[in-house]
Every structure is written in C-alpha cells, then in structure tokens.
C-alpha cells in the first residue's frame, strides 16, 4: 500500500501545478445567482430567470436608460387606441434559429404566458385579447384604460413559435405542453446570447449571438457562465482572486464590505423596491390595528439600516419614508424618514385590546436570505421591550410560498424583499395590498380594505402622472395608517464585481434601467483587458 501512496501524491501535486498555465484568449464572464435558473420565459419570475430572459429573449419595449419611460425594442412604435394598444414590429429581426420574427410569434408568446399562468402572467390580467393585424402589427385589447400596460410589455418575451411548434411534446392542452419541456432546456429567442448548456441548479452557459439584430459589441463577453447557488464565502474568494466577476445581490453586507476592501467594485441597482416586514392582519393580536402600530413604532429602523451598510458610499438600503419607495409616484420626500418611537409604541399598545403576554409572535425569515435572521433577532429584541414573546422560524422560500396561502398558517411576521418588476408602482403595490390577491408571498398581510382597493384601481387607471401621483400619495397615507407592514428600508441591490468587467448600467445613473435585472444585459457589459 505504502508503495503506491507516494507516487499517487506526487501525481496529484504534478497535476495541480498544471493548472497554473495561462488562460484562453476568449473573454468569459462568470456570475452567480440563487437557484434555480428557470429558462422558460413563460415561467420567469425570479431574478435569475429574468436575467436569462433578458439575454436570451427580447421584449417589445425596453425601459429607457437613465430616465423614466420606455423605448421601442422589437417594436418599432406603438400607439394607444382607446383601451387598446397597437404595436408595430421591426421587420429586420430574426430568431437565433434563423426564423424571422413576426406578429404571429408575439401572439403565440402572449397566449403561451396566459395558458401557463405562471411567472408574471398576472401582469396581463386585464388584457382581453390579442390579434395579429398583419405580419408586423399586433393589437392588444384591454378591458379598461391601463396605463402601466407598456411597462408590462417588459415582461413579455417573444418566443420563436415555429421552433416551439416543431418541438411540442404531449400535454393536456390542444397545444400539447406548449413547449414546456423544450423551453426549459433550450432557448428560442432573438436575444444577444445563445444558450450553450443549461442546468437549472448548476449553471447556464451562454455565447454571443453573432446575428443579433442590434449587433453585439466586441467588448461584450464572448461566453457567459451564470452559476447557481454558490456560497457567499466562495464568491468572496473567487472575486478576490479574479476568478469570478459578478456576485448575486444576496451577499451579506460583511462579505460585500470585505470584498470592497480587497479592491472589488460595487455595482448598484435601484429597482424601486424595499424591505418589507409583513404583519398578518387576520391573526390575534395583529388583527388589532393598535398592536400593529405598536410594532411599527417599536421597530429599530436605524439599526436595520446599520446592518445593511457596506461602505461610506454604498449601502444595501436607504431610509424608508413610508409605504412607497422614494422616487416613485406617491412617495414621501426623502427627508421624512421613519424612526423608532418607543413612547408612541407603548401608547398604541395601551390602546390595543390584547395583552402581549398572552401571545408568542412567530417571526419567520427566509432560509435563503441569511441577513433576515438578523432582522428576526432584531425584532425579537425590539418587540420584547413591549412585552411580546417572539419565536424565530427559519422557512425555506418554497415552504413560505405555501404557508402564506392560508391565513392560519401564515406567520405573524414575514420578511420579504419586493421590487417593482416593471418599475411601475402598480406592479409593486397592487399584488401586495389588493384584497383580491391576498395570500401570496407578496401579500401575507391578508389586507382587506375597501379604501386601499379603491386607491389601487385609481392609480392604475389614471392616465396622467399628476393623477397617479395623487392617488398613490393617498394610498401611501392610508397604508401607513393601517400599519399592516413595517417598511424597513428602501432597498438597493448591491453586487460585488471583479475589475475585469465594466457595467455602465449598474454603475452610472445615466445608463441605469429602472427595471430589475435589466442592468444584466450582457451585451452592454465590457470586458476589460486581463
């Protein structure tokens, strides 16, 4: 035995030293996200999914860079015709398969999203029909005036109908499986990057699409490796060693801080979202508004911000001013920040019909987001000053989405991060507070308030910015009064990145997109030398 142990060790060492040789000439961008990466654009909802979607597929419009509003992308132009929207398509776009993109594909993509009913299909709830007027014109019919519709188009990726139909598998529908099996493994878009290999829990490898209709700059990475589920410690070291380029936004602040300390750059995305502590309004003692107000006042906003501070310039959050993130319609001014007020908290508690000693609050935190555990501990300690016992529960994300479907199993306190998926306050607030959508991961409050419903409707149907701002301001005040949510802080997504890559969309405000994940359009990134 001993005799071959030595040569083996020697072989191992020799093999190890071989890796020190120089790297290949192609530029490779390596980044990571939380698993799983859902490649099917009809099911895309999480960050990783969006990232894949924005690069493999294109949408009719794009958010404008560095300013509000939307600019045409696959669409050449659009116009509003009553409740309807009529979109004219570009004629020079081909899919990665070589098929030309036509109105048929847009109709198919829309129908597919509606049929699957997953992902963000709810964005199109008030679309009543779609019609290909000719090869390059599509008409969307809506049941009411709906101003955020153009914004919703950012979540309507256009799928190659011909390719999907060629690869249809059996299913319950007349359309078979709507290409579910095929699209969960393969790309069928027009996007700037082509899927080379895809494993939803490990990594997706993509390469430049040489025939992209806008062309892909040379500086953009030749190959992109999107890896799923890397540990924070791993990412930290890989970036420091220049073996990894961009981290996910879920790195804890300490890790980001030490990376910044080793010279890594910090990328920033302000997607119009916040850290929310949701209170279950159907469960005693939180069915009493005064008990909720007591908690809202007792929460230590300053400590929470301190926890997410990274460097003097960068933080994962900025002070919250109310129910709507600063910068959106209806938001309070930036200097009107929420603070802890124990006196007020005790007064509210007096007015509450329950005795805190009779209850143990369930404080849940999402297992995949380690920082939430610290918020849970913070709240446990904050609320105990009011006399509430609290029990901390670690809940995996998938469990959480199931628990909240029933008010009974929904914890007293849930913590979530929500961003406006299209950049519009409607897509942020409607899914959280409208009584018709209670009991999703975004709405564990089970809020049922006629005034809130009314204001939400008003906000989405108002056609001028002033009207919308007014509606959302009123909503903001009403939500603060109802105290169904503790608005922890306005969220900033911070990504650590190596110095091998430039990402204008995530580093300078004039190039920023107002939509989550859009900053990760790889074609707009630049690989620097090395």
């Amino acid at each position: 035995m001993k005799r071959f142990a030595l040569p083996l060790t020697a072989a191992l060492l020799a093999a190890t030293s071989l890796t020190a040789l120089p790297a290949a000439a192609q530029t490779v961008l390596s980044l990571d996200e939380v698993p799983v990466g859902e490649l099917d654009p009809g099911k895309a909802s999480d960050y990783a999914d969006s990232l894949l979607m924005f690069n493999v597929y294109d949408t009719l419009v794009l958010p404008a860079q560095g300013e509000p509003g939307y600019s045409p992308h696959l669409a050449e132009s659009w116009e509003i015709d009553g409740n309807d929207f009529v979109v004219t398509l570009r004629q020079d776009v081909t899919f990665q398969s070589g098929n030309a993109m036509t109105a048929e594909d847009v109709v198919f993509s829309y129908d597919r999203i509606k049929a699957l009913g997953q992902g963000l299909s709810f964005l199109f709830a008030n679309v009543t029909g779609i019609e290909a007027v000719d090869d390059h014109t599509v008409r969307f019919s809506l049941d009411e005036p709906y101003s955020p519709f153009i914004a919703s188009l950012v979540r309507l990726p256009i799928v190659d109908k011909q390719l999907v139909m060629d690869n249809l598998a059996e299913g319950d529908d007349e359309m078979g499986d709507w290409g579910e099996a095929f699209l969960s493994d393969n790309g069928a878009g027009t996007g700037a990057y082509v899927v080379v290999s895809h494993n939803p829990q490990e990594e997706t490898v993509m390469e430049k699409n040489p025939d992209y209709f806008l062309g892909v700059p040379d500086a953009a990475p030749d190959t992109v490796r999107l890896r799923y589920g890397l540990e924070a410690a791993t990412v930290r070291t890989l970036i420091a060693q220049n073996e990894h380029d961009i981290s996910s936004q879920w790195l804890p602040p300490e890790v980001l801080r030490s990376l910044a300390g080793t010279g890594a750059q910090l990328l920033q995305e302000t997607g119009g979202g916040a850290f929310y502590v949701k209170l279950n309004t159907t469960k005693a003692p939180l069915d009493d508004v005064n008990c909720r107000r007591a908690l809202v006042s007792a929460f230590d906003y300053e400590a929470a911000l301190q926890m997410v501070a990274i460097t003097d310039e960068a933080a994962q959050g900025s002070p919250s001013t109310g129910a709507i993130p600063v910068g959106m319609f209806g938001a309070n001014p930036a200097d009107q920040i929420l603070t802890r007020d124990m006196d007020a908290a005790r007064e509210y508690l007096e007015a509450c019909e329950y005795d805190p000693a009779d209850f143990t609050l369930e404080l849940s935190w999402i297992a995949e987001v380690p920082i939430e555990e610290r918020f849970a501990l913070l709240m446990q300690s904050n609320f105990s000053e009011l006399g509430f016992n609290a029990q901390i529960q670690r809940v995996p994300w998938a469990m959480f989405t199931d628990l909240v479907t029933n008010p009974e199993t929904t914890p007293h306190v849930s913590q979530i991060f929500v961003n406006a998926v299209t950049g519009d306050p409607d897509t942020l607030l409607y899914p959280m507070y409208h009584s018709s959508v209670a009991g999703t991961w975004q709405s564990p409050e089970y809020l049922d308030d006629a005034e809130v419903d009314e204001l939400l409707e008003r906000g989405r149907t108002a056609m001028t910015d002033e009207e919308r701002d007014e509606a959302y301001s009123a909503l903001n005040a009403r939500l603060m009064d109802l105290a169904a949510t503790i608005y922890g802080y306005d969220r900033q997504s911070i990504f650590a990145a190596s110095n091998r890559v430039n990402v204008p969309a995530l580093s300078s405000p004039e190039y920023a997109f107002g939509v989550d994940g859009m900053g990760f359009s790889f074609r707009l990134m630049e690989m620097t030398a090395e």
Partner: protein
Amino acid sequence: MSPVLRLLAKRLVTSMIVLIGVSMLIFSIARVIPGDPARIALGPNATAEQVENLRERLHLNEPLPVQYGHFVADLARGDLGISLYTNRPVTRDIAQFLPATLELIFVAGLMMIVIGLPLGALSARYRHTWADNTIRMVSLLGVSAPAFVWAVILMLLFAYFLPIFPIAGRIANMHVVPSITGFLLVDTLVAGNLRAFGSAVSHIVLPAFALALSGIGQAARLTRSNMVETYDRPYIEMAQAYGFPERRIARRYAFRPSMIPSMTIIGLDFAAMLGNAFLVEAVFAWPGLSRYGVAAILRKDLNAIVGTVLCISALFLIVNIIVDLITAYINPRIRHSQRA
C-alpha cells in the same frame, strides 16, 4: 453454482427486499410532508384551479397505497416523475448530478483505503510505541469531527490562508470539457486536456479529503484493532518461529487475514460517505447529488426526495454487495466453502 455466485444471488434478493422496504418507507415519509407539493411546484402566483389540476395529475388526491402503486408502475418504466422544482424528470436530474457525487466518493474512498489501511497497519505493527499512540490519536481525531468541520478547517487552511487548492466547484471556469461519462477526471483525460485534468484534480483534493478524514480514521482504527487481534493468533507466532521477516509477517500474516472482518465495516464507512457527502458538497459548492437532495428536502420536492433517497440507498446496497464480493475474494473460507 459456485459459492460466490450463490452469495451474490442471495445478497441480490435481500437487497431487492430491502430496497422495496426503503421505497415504501421513504414514499410514506415524503407523502406526509406538510404543505401542498402542487402549490409549491406551481409557484407563488398560481391559481387554485391550476393547483387542483396538478394535484390530479400527480395523483395526490388518491389514497396512499394507490399513490404507491402509481409510483411503482412508473418506476418500473424508469420514471421517477418530474421534479416539482426544476421541472425536469428526476431521473435526468439524478443522472446529471450523480457522477459528481460518485467521483467525490470514489476519490474519498480511495484516500480512505490508501491512507487509512497503511496507517492502521503501521499502528498495529508498532503497537504500544509512540508511533502507534500518535496514529491512534490522529485517527480518533479524524473520527471526532463531522465532515463539515473538516471541510471548513481544510478550506480555511489550504484554500484561504495557503491558497494551494481552489475553494469550490469541480473545475476552473475556463475549461469546457465535453461530458462523456460525467466524471470529470475521466472526461478531461479522454479529451486529452491535461490542464483541465489538473484543474479537476486540484478541485477534488480538498473536498475528497474532508470527506475521507473520518473514514481514514475509522479504517485506521479498525485495521489496527483487528490486526492487533490477529497478532495474537498462533499462525503469527509460527511465522515468527520460522523467522519470516517482520514486514512480511505484518503484510501476509497479520494484515491480510485481519482484513476479512475489517472489510464489512470499511464497506459501511464507505457507504456512510454517501450521507456525509451532503455536508461536504454544501461547503465546497460541489454540484453533486447530495446538494440536489438537500435542496429537494428543503423545498419539499417530493419526487426528487424519493428519487434521491432511493438512488442513494441503491448505491449503498450495491457498495455493500461489492464489499461482500471482495470479502469473499480475500476470505478463502467463502470461496471454497463447498469443500469444507
């Protein structure tokens, strides 16, 4: 029929029975999971109707034995269902993740045997000396910490403070190796890409060693104690009386016979690595079946849980059968039982 074949047949039959038992056990466990797998699968925005449809499709509304029936029928066709989380066939997910785990376990097992057995043998040959005491202490230390503690310590020492080895993954980013067997150590060699092979080797050293440490300790301890016992056997004294060199006695008279009782336990240890791989893969971001399994458990992904546990148990049984065959090979009593 030769005795070895007879043994093999007998073990295969019991293994099948056990595997059926395991499948029933794990199936019942997985089905009493609180929470609605259909709801979890469809994600946060699905409607009640969609959930109900999926429940229907997954037979979730039928009694447990009927569900099991469906499961067995599907299994017979090599179908373990769709992972509710990755939306892909579980068999395909397993096929994709299994090679990484097998590779890790195989290398760790090799380390266990190549390091653990000689250490134990050395310890036994120089029993009650300082060398023996040191080896015993070290091997006990090896057994005394869970694999994840070793993983963290090794990572700190040899990936962070002395950056000799890479800290995570199976291979460096720049290498793209066509997957033939799924075993990177093999695929890189087949591709003739020595640098990729080197990268794969350097990536596997730390995780495999962390995984192997307790096995090394266990193997060394076991080898020592069985060998020390064997040293009391009359044939050792006879060998000494004939003046055979001590080395030869240690190898042929003490070590080899002592391996017969050791093999079974070492087999068990080897199989226990299948479980411990969960801990190591988590630390080293090793994209293997264990990580897949943990994710499945945390996400209540029914089919994936059942599939993973069944697969691991089957592997466990296969390893045990192989160990039995090796034991039969080194133990002439089994090989030649018909003449006894």
